[in-house]
């Protein structure tokens, strides 16, 4: 038994090292002078020319400045960050509001045709994005959204099948008696939704908000398709452009820029760890 325990811990520690090593390598590279990124064999600690250990924090400033290109067409990093935050925050607001409303309709209001529409809703989850891609581009063009950030957040205000499903499952666990009692007290459907159901549903609202934020921060194909000018780019696309624009890759700067894109997500994770774990676990178990 004791030997088993030891083997378990040994494996866990070893595997943890393997899983963490890429991130450690990212941080290490991001703090090295450029010559050191091309030394063999590679070394872990960033060193100055005289061999003393010295992290080059300037790399970060340099990376953020050069990420937006050179010369007059240069876009400040803050613009990319602002675009990304706008898409994320507006999207989160839209996703939480619209999915809660729709899920309430499916979970708590009895109306003819409801269950048929819900079945259709579930079926649409099967449709892969490439099927929708071309006509969606046409829809956004008709709406005058191409080249703007709008197609990256506005659709969130019109609910999505998966989030509706997730929230409906949660609302159904709230006892019907609560709604009934409120109805007898003369509450309108809106009041029941806003004052009784929503306050009880904070856990699932948090899961939807968090996952939408993460999704929007990560989204690459959307911005790639719908954005045209450099000053509208989000961080994900700006980072990929940074790698492909300058002929030779400056690894220390690219790693610094990547670290900046990763950091907010890591911080978010440590603040909302429980929500993350609960979110994934419920999607997996109820799906």
């Amino acid at each position: 038994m004791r030997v088993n325990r030891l083997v378990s811990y040994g494996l866990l520690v070893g595997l943890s090292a393997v899983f963490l090593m890429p991130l450690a390598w990212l941080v290490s590279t991001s703090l090295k002078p450029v010559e050191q990124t091309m030394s063999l064999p590679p070394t872990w600690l960033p060193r100055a020319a005289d061999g003393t250990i010295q992290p080059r924090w300037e790399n970060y400033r340099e990376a953020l400045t050069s990420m937006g290109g050179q010369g007059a067409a240069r876009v400040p990093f803050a613009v990319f960050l602002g675009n990304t935050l706008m898409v994320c925050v507006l999207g989160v607001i839209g996703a939480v509001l619209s999915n809660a409303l729709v899920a309430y309709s499916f979970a708590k209001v009895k109306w003819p045709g409801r269950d048929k529409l819900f079945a259709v809703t579930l079926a649409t989850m099967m449709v892969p994005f490439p099927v929708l891609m071309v006509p969606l581009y046409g829809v956004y063009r008709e709406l005058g959204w191409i080249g703007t950030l709008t197609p990256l957040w506005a659709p969130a205000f019109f609910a999505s099948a998966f989030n509706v499903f997730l929230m409906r499952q949660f609302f159904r666990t709230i006892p019907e008696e609560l709604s009934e009692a409120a109805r007898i007290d003369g509450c309108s459907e809106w009041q029941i939704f806003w004052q009784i159901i929503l306050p009880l549903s904070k856990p699932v609202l948090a899961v939807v908000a968090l996952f939408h934020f993460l999704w929007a921060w990560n989204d690459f194909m959307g911005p790639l398709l719908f954005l045209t000018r450099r000053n509208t780019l989000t961080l994900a696309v700006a980072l990929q452009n940074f790698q492909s624009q300058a002929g030779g890759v400056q690894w220390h700067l690219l790693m610094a820029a990547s670290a900046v894109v990763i950091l907010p997500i890591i911080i978010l994770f440590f603040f909302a760890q429980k929500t993350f774990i609960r979110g994934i676990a419920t999607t997996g178990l109820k799906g």
Partner: protein
Amino acid sequence: MTTFERANLRNGLLFCLPWLIGLSVFTLYPVVASLFYSFCDYSVLQAPVWSGTENYRRMWGDKVFWLSLKNTLFFAGLSLPLGMAVALALALLLNTGVRGLPVFRTIFYLPSIVPIVASSMLWLWIFNGQFGLLNSFLRPVLGSATPAWLADPQWAKPALVLMSLWGVGNSMVIYLAGLQNVPGELYEAAAIDGAGVWRKFWHVTLPLISPVIYFNLIMGIIGSLQVFTTVFAMTGGADGNPARSTLFYALYLFSTAFYDLRMGYACAMAWVLFVVIVVLTVVATKLMEKRVHYAS
């Protein structure tokens, strides 16, 4: 209809309004339109012209189409089973009652939330043939025979598979939640009946977590057939460099639609992808049907 029923219908539709609009504008219309375009010659610049089954017939003789399908199935066929096995192994290891579970779980989960483009940049650097971290470990063993990974048509796909294993944290957490739901009494009962570790795993654990295995399998099929971002970001666009070895289905579809402006052909390709996904999902469901065990 009573007043009560009428009020319910009105309320129901009002609350549902965002989705009624979203479903029709952003899902149902695109589905119908894309099916129509798939039977058309359509370049966006001009109105679609009906061409019957031309697009589908052309696909049959399109070597690049078959190559992209082959590449995608190769990648999915390796990364899906390996990823599921690694995720399950990690979850089992975490479920042995070790101390510090939250710490280890965090470490294994963290890579899966690293933004995809950022992790692509990181792995591009790790796979660098000359100065990359991976080859610095392999060089003492392989000498000058270390692969150039993403620069070598033979090794580019295996490199992407290897990288995908780093992101299994999400399915690991799902497995772990499934494992934690298995009642401890069942293991005790099995132990009393003289079952060893292997038989407990085979006859207690696996059947009881079969719903989450099924879930991860289906999600994995859907996801791995549509891989796009990592490949696009790591191989410099939609060409599938080097030598089309990483030209995956989604990349070919994307460049057909938005670089070559052959929207009709791209829509036909998208529908074929849809059919492939549905067929594989149905096959997986049939294979697992008798083995998936729902507790209640």
